């Protein structure tokens, strides 16, 4: 089981406690080209030591993902829809993506309590869906999944 999660808070309580501890996930890969060294250090310090944690550049991700990850449950975490598009473009097969949280910043409009999107991000989501990837809004395992189409259709 691989959970693909979009969450601009990156590694935080919902991810660590709500998903990884709660579902017993074994690994967490963060895929991001823009993350600072300081952020990387903080994450390496705070992710529980028993979790296999990697921070990957999008360019390197294919090699890492081609080995069979699905024998152990884990999560691939990105900060926005565009990283998912890059993964798809690199040939990674993704059946389902969860949007766990995209929070307010200038240029984004609100779609639900914890989802704010820019027009560009809405377009990126539509493109993800066009790859036959299901996109669900879900903050926590215990919460209901909502198809993102329900929120972004006009």
């Amino acid at each position: 089981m691989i959970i693909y999660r979009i969450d601009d808070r990156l590694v935080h309580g919902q991810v660590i406690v709500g998903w990884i501890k709660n579902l017993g996930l074994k690994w967490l890969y963060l895929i991001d080209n823009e993350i600072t060294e300081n952020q990387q250090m903080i994450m390496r310090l705070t992710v529980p030591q028993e979790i296999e944690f990697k921070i990957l550049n999008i360019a390197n991700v294919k090699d890492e993902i081609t080995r069979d990850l699905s024998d152990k449950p884990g999560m691939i975490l990105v900060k926005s829809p565009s990283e998912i598009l890059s993964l798809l473009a690199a040939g990674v097969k993704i059946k389902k993506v969860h949007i766990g949280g995209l929070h307010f910043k200038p240029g984004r409009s609100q779609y639900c309590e914890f989802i704010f999107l820019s027009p560009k991000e809405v377009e990126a989501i539509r493109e993800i869906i066009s790859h036959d990837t299901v996109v669900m809004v879900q903050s926590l395992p215990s919460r209901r999944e909502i198809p993102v189409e329900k929120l972004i259709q006009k």
Partner: protein
Amino acid sequence: MIGIIVVSHDGVAEAMVKCCETIIGKLDCLETISFFSDEHLIDLEKKFDVALDNLSACNGILILIDMFGGSPSNIAIKKLSQNPEIEIISGFNIPMLLELISRSNLGDVKELKEKLLNRSKAGIIDIKGLIKERLKK
């Protein structure tokens, strides 16, 4: 299912439970009680009785109170004197509540109490000390 009552002064119980629900999700069989500065002890005891009544179908009751020796503590101990099966822990924090919300349908109330005592103390961390230790590795 173990019935849980989280009790505090001034809305702390509600705020902390809501915080945990944001991080991890909802827990059934959990009641929160707050005691406000204009309320009489009789009102606090009534709230306890309502909560205990709501949880009457549960196997075991665990009451979490903000501090030992306050009014919530006094009424919780009164309830314990009426029902010796009740367990009470003081000094709850977010790590305790998170552990609770992930676990409460496992084991009996005494096991849960021990888990929560350990987890809440383990969640009190000198972060700089922890970082120094991890950086050594």
